[in-house]
């Protein structure tokens, strides 16, 4: 079985982002999706700190401390870009104007519940940022994550053990083993990596799956 590497996972998501889409890419692995957007599609990237039409990181020496993304990294603007304040930025999410957001996750439940903001450990300093707004704030919420934790536990679960970010908000989960579509009738699995059967995958994830 050949697991997808991080770039292949990001490319798999990018393939499903259509021409003309307004998209927010979360911090971490989802940020990689920007490097794989297919040629010939005009896709507008949103960053929560007040920019539509975000471009790539500038060349060394061209960074502007007042032109950054949600991960506080330097970025650029593309032709057609717009700046706006925070209330407008989150109106774009909450108001359902963004077509897609791509988020990382600790866990996603088969009902589409998302946990990605807080480990819940007693010594952890809670910090939510825009995670809860993004979770409920796009027409479609895609999660991009490894299917298993480093110690082999599934991250697609019957019920989340970590504190929730949003309830029943995830549409689709892209992983290094397969893509999962969350539907009211259960979870559909597709794009299984070579050498992996649906039965194997069900065994690994511990939840019921149907071929999709």
């Amino acid at each position, binding site marked *: 079985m050949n697991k997808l590497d991080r770039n292949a996972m990001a490319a798999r998501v990018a393939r499903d982002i259509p021409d003309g889409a307004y998209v927010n890419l979360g911090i971490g692995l989802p940020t990689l999706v920007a490097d794989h957007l297919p040629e010939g599609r005009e896709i507008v990237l949103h960053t929560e700190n007040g920019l539509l039409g975000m471009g790539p990181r500038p060349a060394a020496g061209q960074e502007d401390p007042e032109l950054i993304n949600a991960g506080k990294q330097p970025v650029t603007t593309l032709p057609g870009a717009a700046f706006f304040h925070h209330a407008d930025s989150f109106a774009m999410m909450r108001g359902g104007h963004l077509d897609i957001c791509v988020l990382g996750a600790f866990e996603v439940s088969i009902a589409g519940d998302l946990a990605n903001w807080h480990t819940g450990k007693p010594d952890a300093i809670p910090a939510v940022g825009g995670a809860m707004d993004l979770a409920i*704030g796009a027409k479609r919420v895609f999660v991009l994550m490894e299917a298993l934790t480093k110690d082999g536990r599934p991250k697609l679960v019957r019920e989340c053990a970590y504190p929730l970010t949003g309830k029943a908000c995830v549409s689709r989960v892209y992983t290094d083993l397969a893509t999962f579509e969350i539907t009211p009738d259960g979870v559909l699995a597709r794009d299984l990596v070579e050498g992996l059967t649906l039965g194997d995958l069900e065994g690994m994830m511990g939840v019921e799956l149907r071929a999709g």
Partner: protein
Amino acid sequence: MIDKIVPTLEAAVAGIPDGATVLVGGFGTAGMPFALIDALIAQGAGDLTIVSNNAGNADTGLAALLATGRVRKVICSFPRQHDSWVFDGLYRSGEIELEVVPQGNLAERIRAAGAGIGAFFTPTGYGTLLAEGKETRRIDGRDYVLEYPIHADVALIKAKTADRHGNLVYNKTARNFGPIMASAAKLSIAQVSEVVPLGALDPESVVTPGIFVSRVVVAHEETPPSW
């Protein structure tokens, strides 16, 4: 005649009382009003409640204010960062109170205060720890949480250009919380890079109309990188 330009940073922060709730602009270091924060530290007001997206970076700006021990409580969305050691230390030793608010709720609570809204129902946070104990309502089949505005005594913000009426234009993603914070405080203070004559700003391009701004002060400073 209206002239909101004050000559010094000291004059800009004069009269901020102990116990004030202070909105502080910025997302990371972009838009953080470093000069005004330094002036507030020198001015000496204490027992403050600070409302800002983050809880300070490295040892300057908001972090330096926290380090004075004059901040009782921080209301923010994302305190924990790679360089938030000042806040982290105060929080872990129980010397500072924290209210974590989802970023969009933080922005909308500030906007609501400036817009005279009594409270609002938002879908963000429903069913999570951050909505525990809050009133909820199902409207047209969707679940919402009741959130209240954040009214403030003072706003400290940073813009690029002002005129003497307090009309403001910002710089790139340093705009972030500036416009909504300006509207939500009794005393809104803007530090700017330059002041231009009245009439020089295109009325179509003014981002914060001067009615929301109380004082303007010129401060030349380099924004340290957030990365």
